[in-house]
Each structure stands twice: as structure tokens, then as C-alpha cells.
């Protein structure tokens, strides 16, 4: 290999800059809020994950062509329980505007009645899903997927930060 005295400094600087840039990437999660993040934010995010996973489990059952209604009922029951749990998971001061890593909009606290209503829509839709699964009617369960999906969307549209 030939060696040249060609300027090796600029590339070195470039490389270091690139590496430094990569290093600082992880610092982007910093928030403007002071103090530790309220634990309830992680809890409610895990709870919404549970709702999402239950919904996926139900839709997955319907895709197979041979749905396991006990599994659907079980998933709908978990969804319903998680929907109840959300009622206690939105204390004041935990919005995205408070500087936390969350998508909870301040409208949750500005329009509490509408938020409760949106939550009730999920409670009703999941309760109805339990009943339909118990009846073992695939078509009815499939139709109810739309109702559950609308209740998700209804709340996301008004109370969750739009990121897509």
C-alpha cells in the first residue's frame, strides 16, 4: 500500500463529526419538564399496548378462517379491563405540553366529559365484543371489530398527538 501525505486531516475531522453526531442522537429524548417522569405515563402506555395487542389478537383470530371464540372472548375481556384502568391513568400535569414523553393532549383535561365519553365508547364496544364472542358468531364478531376500531380512532383523533 502506498502512503501519501495527502491531507488526512479533513477526513479525520469529518469522521469524528459523524461519530459525534451519532453519539448525540440519543440525547433527543430530553424533556422540558422538571423532576422524574410520573410513573403513570409508562403504566398507561403499557395499558394501551395491552388494548392494542388484544385487538390484534381478535383480528388475528378472524383472519384464520377458524376463529377460537374463547380466545376472542378472553382478549375482549382484557381489553375491557384495560379500558377501565385508563380512567385512573390521566392525572393532571401528565400531558405532552407538560414536557413529558407522551402523546396525551391537553384536550383530555380541557374536555373531560368528552374524554370520558370516548372512553365509554371503548368500554361498550369491548363489552359487546365479549357477548358476541360468547354467542360464537364469526360474522357478528367481525362486524364488531369495526365498532372497536372506531372507538380507538374516536379517542386518538381528539386526544392523542397526531404523529402520522
Amino acid at each position, binding site marked *: 500500500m*502506498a502512503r501519501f501525505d495527502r491531507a488526512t486531516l479533513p477526513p479525520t475531522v469529518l469522521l469524528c463529526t459523524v461519530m459525534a453526531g451519532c453519539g448525540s442522537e440519543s440525547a433527543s429524548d430530553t424533556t422540558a419538564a422538571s423532576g422524574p417522569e410520573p410513573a403513570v405515563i409508562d403504566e398507561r402506555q403499557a395499558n394501551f399496548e395491552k388494548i*392494542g395487542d388484544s385487538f390484534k389478537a381478535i383480528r388475528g383470530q378472524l383472519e384464520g378462517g377458524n376463529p377460537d371464540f374463547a380466545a376472542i372472548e378472553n382478549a375482549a375481556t382484557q381489553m375491557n379491563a384495560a379500558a377501565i384502568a385508563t380512567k385512573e391513568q390521566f392525572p393532571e400535569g401528565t400531558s405532552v405540553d407538560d414536557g413529558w414523553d407522551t402523546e396525551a393532549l391537553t384536550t383530555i383535561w380541557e374536555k373531560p366529559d368528552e374524554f370520558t365519553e370516548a372512553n365509554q365508547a371503548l368500554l361498550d364496544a369491548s363489552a359487546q365484543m365479549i357477548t358476541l364472542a360468547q354467542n360464537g358468531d364469526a360474522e357478528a364478531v367481525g362486524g364488531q371489530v369495526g365498532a372497536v376500531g372506531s372507538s380507538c380512532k374516536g379517542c386518538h383523533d381528539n386526544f392523542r398527538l397526531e404523529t402520522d
Partner: protein
Amino acid sequence: MSGERPALAPGHSVRVWDIPVRLTHWSFALLVPALWWSAENSQWVLHKRFGIALLGLLVFRLLWGLFGTKTAKFTSFVRGPKAVFEYLRGKSGGAVEKIGHSPLGALSVLALLAAMAVQVGTGLFAGDPYDGATGPLNSLVGVLTADALTDWHEWFVYVVLGLAAFHLSAIAFYLIVKQNDLVSPMLSGSKLVRGSVEANEPTPLVRFVAVAAIAASFTVWIANGAPPLS
């Protein structure tokens, strides 16, 4: 490292990397961090746009690996394990200077391209229509498949970032330990050599435009959810 070489004319510049190779390379270098940042910050509109851009560049680079210039072609730089092993033992260079990817660098190129392809491929199907952004092909697969691919997309990014970090370390190693600047040729397209070396072809512009048009058409089709043709 043969220092005893007959006195030759001072180093002269030879063409190494064509324009498309350099453009795709630096676009990858910008897009991968941009994709990571956009995902970490839930900027899904941007994330999808960057992802589609990366898809187009990857498709282009793979085609250019078939139809591009000599140093861009897979057949010219992908070597067997024997060549890689000999390169590692420092045997392959000999007195003849070479341009283009080394047998070891070729593996790095393949690994990086393959990892980005896996990441883009899973991203196309990722997401859940009831919960935020989805890739353009999400509706072509079932909800559980999409969920599994989303999980893949979420952890496989660390493979991509790990390979990128390894790639940067290798460049630093070549620069500092081997005194071989790999960055400047990737910027300028040419490198200084002393011996007689067969230079790379100039960028064939018509072929460049044609391959780019094919890659762009394919990418637009995918971005629109791969609708049935005709």
C-alpha cells in the same frame, strides 16, 4: 507494504467511484441517522418519506451493481472466502495497486446493503391501521404478520446501526493505522496512485438515467401499495 518500488512519476489521480455510487453512498449515510431520529421522535410522516427514499436508493444501488461501472458491479468486487482470507493475511495486494472494494470491504458492502434491505422490507409492512402510521404494504398481510414484522423492524434497526458503527470504525482504522484515506475518494470519486492502475470507467450518464428511472418507477409503485398492474 512493499516500500522498495522503482521511482515513478509523482502520484496521479485515477477515477475510482462513479457518481451514482457516491450519491447513493452519501444518501445512505444521511438517511440512516435521519430514519433513526424520525422514529425515535415519532415523526412518522418523515419516517415514511425517508424510508421510501431509502427503498428507491437501495433498488437503484442493487441494479447499479448489475449495470453500473466496474467498481460498482457486484461481480467485480464480491470475492470468495479464499480471497478474503488472503486479504486479511496481507497477501493479496502484491506489487499491483488496485482500486475498488477490497475482498473484505465487499463483505461490508453486502452486509450493509442487506441489512438496510431487511429494515426497509419489514418497514413496508409495519404498523397497525388502527394505531398510527403504517407502511405502504401493510394491508397486504394479516394483522399478526404485520405485528411480527413490526417487531422485527424495531429490533433489527440495532443490526443496521451496529454495522454502520463497525463500518465507521473500519474507516477510522484504515485512516489512522493503515494511513489509507478511504473517505476522500468516496467524496471526489478519484484517488492518488503512483503505480499504473486501470482507472474506473466514467459514469455512463444514459445508463445512469435509465436505471434511475426503473428504480424510481418501482419505488413509486411500492409507495402506492403495489396496486395491480394493467
